[in-house]
């Protein structure tokens, strides 16, 4: 359990808000075969979708509600401490950003995949996450530049 050794089953914390972010995250599940995966989202109703995988929830939050943001961050911290992931994978938004920052502090490698909804510019949370993520991907080729890479999309 835990740790950052490279030759064993990776522990992955996969994070997305309910709604479009979650639908996109779930479309990545074939890439997580053979991993020890825990899911974190903002609606308990998604539990049935993840089978035997571990499942956590936190409250939804956005930048307009600072109290909700703080409470969400605290819950995400608790999940990260419990899960000790080797990898944090997220499609956004706020809970994904918190998990990425906190996971990185705990030694996890982190990947942010910005939502395909962001056609014209990176999302605000994506722009913040980009400064910290080991890998930051956009789903639109025309947005790729510098460290922001395009490696295909969720469709």
């Amino acid at each position: 359990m835990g740790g950052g050794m490279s030759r064993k089953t990776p522990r992955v914390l996969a994070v997305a808000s309910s709604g479009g972010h979650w639908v996109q995250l779930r479309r990545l599940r074939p890439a997580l075969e053979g991993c020890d995966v825990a899911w974190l989202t903002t609606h308990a109703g998604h539990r049935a979708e993840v089978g035997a995988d571990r499942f956590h929830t936190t409250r939804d939050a956005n930048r307009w509600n600072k109290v909700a943001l703080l409470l969400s961050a605290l819950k995400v911290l608790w999940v990260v401490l419990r899960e000790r992931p080797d990898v944090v994978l997220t499609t956004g938004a706020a809970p994904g950003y918190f998990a990425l920052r906190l996971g990185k502090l705990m030694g996890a490698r982190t990947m942010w995949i910005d939502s395909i909804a962001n056609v014209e510019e990176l999302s605000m949370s994506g722009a913040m996450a980009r400064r910290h993520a080991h890998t930051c991907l956009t789903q639109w080729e025309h947005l790729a530049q510098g460290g922001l890479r395009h490696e295909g999309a969720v469709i």
Partner: protein
Amino acid sequence: MIFVTVGTQLPFDRMIRVVDEWAGRCGRKDVFAQIGPGSYIPKHVEHATFISPSECSTRMREASVLVAHAGMGSILTALEIGTPIIIMPRRAGLGEHRNDHQLATARRFAALGKVRVAMDESELPAALDSVGDVKVGERISPFASPRLLAAVKGFVHGGSGAARADGVSA
């Protein structure tokens, strides 16, 4: 059955009002709307503020047509299960979202021809009138593109996800 949804967060009264008035005008009784925390209360269609993810999934599968805000969750799910969808984008200027990304989404998917788009409330009644003609698109795969899956898989197993070669991998 026509299933109408505004997604998991915000109300979208501008769309709900048009659908409700259209249903009243046409005498459509087979409409269910998930309306979010809006202030417009439909008079002609059955509605709920929020529904559970599983109920939403069931209603999307059982519907003959979906009417939705231009959110990726609604669009991707519709394409995945092969239910025709009419989308209408939210506008930040009307307080309907934090920015105008749904306008760009609507334009992109209109160009792809996979969804029917009503850019605003003036275009929605005509789209609803042609609801029987909205084509079932070909279903898309339930999974991301092979390229993205390979990038994620590579990253998870210690690679760089074909991204920054900065020595962060184990």
